[in-house]
């Protein structure tokens, strides 16, 4: 492989990130297409995609709930937060509900340790949660969706 091409390959992750931003996930077809663009074996691109947790292989829900499981959040009760959401929405860590509305994911750290416990929904962070506050936030999203529909 020529040096030029090798250097180009270092953009693979960037291109995958762009794809994910656009489509919300990375499909088989996208992997094949990108592999061809980079002149890389399909299996290598698939291997890269599957290595990094940022890349999703299935479409996520409209509202992506991330429960921070960083140390500060964990010791203050992020497991309870996760379970409360599961009880409320009926989806477990890593799942999307049937309507494709909410998906739930436990993540390493959102970096807002002083606000523990925190979650983020589509990037918006909610901190210092207790059960009441949490359920209200989710209920508001549900309401918003019902009103929009």
């Amino acid at each position, binding site marked *: 492989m020529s040096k030029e091409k090798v250097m180009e390959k270092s953009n693979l992750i960037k291109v995958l990130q762009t794809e994910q931003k656009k489509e919300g996930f990375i499909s088989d077809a996208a992997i094949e297409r990108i592999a061809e663009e980079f002149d890389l074996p399909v299996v290598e691109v698939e291997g*890269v995609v599957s290595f990094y947790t940022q890349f999703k292989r299935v479409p996520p829900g409209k509202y992506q709930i991330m429960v921070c499981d960083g*140390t500060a959040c*964990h*010791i203050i*009760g992020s497991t309870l937060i996760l379970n409360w959401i599961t009880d409320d929405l009926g989806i477990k860590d890593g799942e999307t509900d049937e309507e494709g509305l909410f998906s739930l994911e436990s993540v*390493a750290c959102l970096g*807002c340790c002083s606000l523990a416990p925190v979650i983020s929904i589509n990037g918006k*962070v909610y901190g210092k949660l207790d059960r009441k506050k949490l359920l209200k936030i989710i209920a508001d999203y549900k309401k918003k969706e019902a009103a929009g529909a």
Partner: protein
Amino acid sequence: MIKRIKVGMASCGIAAGAGEVLELLKEIAQDKEVVEVGCIGHCYAEPLVEVETDSGNYIFEKVQPKEKDLQKLLELDEFTRFQPHNLRIDKERLLITSLAGKIVPTSLDEYKDHKGYEGLKKALEMKPDEIVEEVKTSKLRGRGGGGFPAGLKWSFLAAKESEQKVLICNADEGDPGAFMDRTLMESLPHQVIEGMLIGAKATGARKLFIYCRAEYPLAVKNLNIAIEQIEKEGLNIIDGEPVDIMVKEGAGAFVCGEETALIHSLEGKRGTPRYRPPYPTDYGFHGYPSAINNVETFANVPFIVREGGAKFAETGTENSTGTKLFALAGDLKYSGLVEVPMGISIGEVVYDIGGAEPGSVKAVQIGGPSGGCIPADHFDTPIDYDSLTSLGAIMGSGGLIVIGNDRCMVETARYFLEFTTRESCGKCTFCRIGTKRMLETLERITGGEGSTEDVELLSDLGNKIIRGSLCGLGQTAPNPVLSTLKYFNNEYLAHVEEGFCSAMECKALVDVFIDQETCIECGQCIKNCPVDCISEDYVVDNEVCTRCNSCIEVCPVDAIARIAKGGEVSVRN
């Protein structure tokens, strides 16, 4: 007369609601300039707003996006003014974060107004080996955790003859509970870049990467703005040649904090580490000699060059010079980012700066998943690389979590092992399978099914994983377990021998109990129970109960609590 209003808009501020405050302030402050700044480290008081006036600056804490409150603020109302407690002011030493939250992060001019890029200017007039020498004099050690002398690493790269040399800033801050690097990049992107450019001059590297965690969008944004600004001004020209600086976003893999894995990831590959030697300074990014330093390391460099290595070394201890940033969180009053001189004791950080209640703290977890737990009776230990290592912890990147008396140490260890198991790249047998087996063993113990053999297995396998792993992740993964085994062995034994979790944290070892004496029969617990396990006469069916704590949370009179499983509690006759 108000000159300017600064809203702390780093991630922590935004999470606390600073965005709404900013919007509203812009509306009601009319002609006054409202700017976004970074973080001053006092996260517990967010959202923070600073008002610059002729007669001095005033900071306001916990500002709510309410017009009435903001009006008061504009009137410089004394009531909500923020005053950091004196003990913290006394103990902190702001060497590298002095500008954080004080200046607009994306303003090159403002950075320059505060001696920004003076270090670079000076460096450009120096010979590369003079810079390396200065850094050696400063005795700056890598802030990413390993503590390798930065000057020495640079001298290796500087000595290399190659058509291309690469300098990489490791900003893949993956420790759960650490946000030092994020704060630096969000609040002081120019300071980090200045440090890198000085490094480029010193080592001859002309290709610079910042490998940043994708979870830090604001950091990426601010860095990119800063890079654009210096390129426009030509600040990136070294010896007549433009230096290429590029921010590369990681994609979610803690192991990429390991330098050979980081390089693989930069190259667009799976982030698996490889055996060293060859070290990256011999064979790095695409084979070119490369040096990797942490964000905080680079952030220290402008001061060293500007003020001199000797001046830098005045702070700290003989072998650990300068300051260290810590992300302080957990069971304490004042969480946030602190910058303290090396050599300060753990106790000073936890009690004096963090405001934790003496007697309520069991331990600190230092160094995240690679670090260890240090019990409260060792809190007089000075924070320096060697003292921490001798206790079985590590300096790490700077996560410092205070663990209160009511937390289970076995569960804490399990938590970290779960993290490293999930983050193992899967290459080395010991790390890939060994951490999984340790995790399963810890789950047996917290699940009430552990044995004393399990405790022995943890220690034997833990030490083997350290020996039999290629990279820092595997070599340190067992630390949280081994250090808790060392200092909190009694908790492990209580779990396996008596089925008792003194912290009442391990679900399998507790029951939920309603004290009939206190109960006012308000029905809240029954209403909120997701599994309908509370009877009409307020008795919990512990066979069905999932220990979700919903009832405990909603009980208005604190009549519900976790008790030891099968524990006898006197009930109303």
